[in-house]
């Protein structure tokens, strides 16, 4: 197996994308204790928005605005219709419910766009290559890392330095005590959902550059892999979760390209066996070194 610079760049791109998705999923889990299986569908909706915008001949920036609008509206709808009524139910019910929503949205997409999908072309200029030191690296790989880094930096500033960020952190540690102190539950949850949605929109933009063809199962597999990464990294804490997402993205990206086909076919098996092993041996996650133990 030989690892080329191209493989590494692919790994960086996928790692950055998965890291952002991991944060998006982790934020909502933190405040709602709900794993949103339908998160990938938010990304898909954003990607379809971009595809439609490019089909209608809109300029790139307008497509991005549409993407954000659609994703944020859909997140808000999910929160209102599904998350709120289910608050307080058992984790099993919530899991099945988001699974149902994921399936529902995928079916709607299939109905609307057909299984062949659409193509989002407006940002393809980022798909072109820079030549650095004699090696071709896709611009998007670099841009992805930078964008992900900036997003994560802004988010950590938000969480550490602002009042709402403090409230969100407290809510994810002990929601009922936070409420007792006056932290507004609905506001914190809506904010988490909003940020989570914004991240999904960013991911949609980045993924469409990598894969301009948008199909209805766009991002369903990615959600599952990201979830695997988050669980392996550490579901209960934000940093381990993000690292887990990045790690699995990076590994998938590099190995997916570097392994010969005969072996790369079985990559999902290796990934999911690893997930099961981590769940059995170190349920808190590989990167979680905190002392507080939470039930998963």
């Amino acid at each position, binding site marked *: 197996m030989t690892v080329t610079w191209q493989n590494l760049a692919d790994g960086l791109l996928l790692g950055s994308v998965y890291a952002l998705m991991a944060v998006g999923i982790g934020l909502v889990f933190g405040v709602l204790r709900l794993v949103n299986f339908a998160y990938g569908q938010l990304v898909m909706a954003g990607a379809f928005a971009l595809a439609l915008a490019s089909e209608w001949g809109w300029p790139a920036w307008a497509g991005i605005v549409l993407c954000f609008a659609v994703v944020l509206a859909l997140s808000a709808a999910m929160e209102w219709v599904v998350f709120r009524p289910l608050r307080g139910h058992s984790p099993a019910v919530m899991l099945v419910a988001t699974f149902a929503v994921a399936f529902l949205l995928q079916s709607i997409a299939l109905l609307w766009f057909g299984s062949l999908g659409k193509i989002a072309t407006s940002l393809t200029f980022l798909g072109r290559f820079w030549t650095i030191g004699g090696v071709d690296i896709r611009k998007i790989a670099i841009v992805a890392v930078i964008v992900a880094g900036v997003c994560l930096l802004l988010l950590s500033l938000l969480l550490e330095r602002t009042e709402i960020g403090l409230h969100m952190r407290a809510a994810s540690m002990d929601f009922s005590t936070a409420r007792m102190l006056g932290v507004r539950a609905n506001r914190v949850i809506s904010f988490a959902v909003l940020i989570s949605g914004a991240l999904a929109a960013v991911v949609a933009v980045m993924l469409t550059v990598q894969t301009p063809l948008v199909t209805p199962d766009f991002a369903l597999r990615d959600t*599952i892999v990201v979830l695997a990464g988050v669980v392996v990294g550490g579901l209960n804490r934000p940093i381990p979760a993000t690292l887990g997402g990045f790690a699995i993205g990076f590994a998938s990206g590099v190995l997916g390209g570097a392994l010969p086909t005969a072996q790369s076919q079985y990559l999902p*098996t290796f990934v999911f066996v690893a997930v099961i092993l981590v769940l*059995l041996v170190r349920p808190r996650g590989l990167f979680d070194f905190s002392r507080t133990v939470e039930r998963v």
Partner: protein
Amino acid sequence: MRRYHLDEVIGPVVLVVAAALLGTLVSISTQTYFTDTLVKVAIVVALYVFIGNSGVLSFGHISFVALGAWTAGVLTVPPSEKPAIMPNLAGFLQHRHVDNVESLLLAALVGGIAAFLVGIPLMRLSGLAAGIATFAVLEISHNLLQYQERIGPGLNAFSSVPETTGLRQAAIGAVVCIVVAFLYARSRFGRLLRATREDDAAARAVGASVYRQRLIAFTVSGFLAGLGGGLYVHLLPVQVNSVYLDLTFITLAMLVVGGATSLFGAVVGALAVSALDSWLSVAENGTSLFGWHIDLPAGTAEIVVGVLMAAVLILRPSGLTGGRELRLRGVSWRAFASRAQA
């Protein structure tokens, strides 16, 4: 003294037999929907045996359905056809051939053994971890079956399997699953497991081993799921993606809509949702209802079922039956007695 509430099994069996009889009255092409429904009943009952009694979610049971399908399929494709669909089949499988009933038994056996092996590590997990781990099992089996051509057709469909699952076979299979599920649920094992579902600590205090009971239930349900897979492969050409996420979703939906914690719920859910889904599928090809012509766009069926499942979860999480079994005698005698006293 153990009391078997026989009325709990009569209801589901009657429903299944009624559905089968109804199926004999319709055209041959419509009959396939009925047969498919009955096979789904078998699978959903298998799900109930584990999920309903333990309260632990499993996304991975369709793996056992797939393994059952593969087993029965590989062993019943006529040897002359094998090289065509499964050119890379392992040596000892190329020449083996069994008859219909044997294939079903072997399918169940393989399902049960696989469930047992998978359950040994996994039954220690609960809640979210169990959900994710069982999902991983589904992904692993899908990945392996998709590319391993030594044990099956890989990406191809099982096209030459003898189509022995008609209404009768499917109905018998469903009834077998119901009876086994009933016997399990009424047994000491079933009751111990349900005790752990209600109150983990209390059950442990009286000596119930949560792990052991879950493993037993998981194995039994794997057995039944394997049987379901065997029935399925004899019904239509099974392909690796038809025993994957779609089937997982719809069978879970059936269980949830019917009422996850009861056998009656599993059967009602399977029949109701399947009827709806079948009717919608027919409507997608153009049909008439009370004189109106209806032609739904393709994919409507999944959307309606998805909305239904989400709605039930949000509005009535215990399902259509409220998760309760159908008790015939208890209700009527009590009502009768109180009226007699008044």
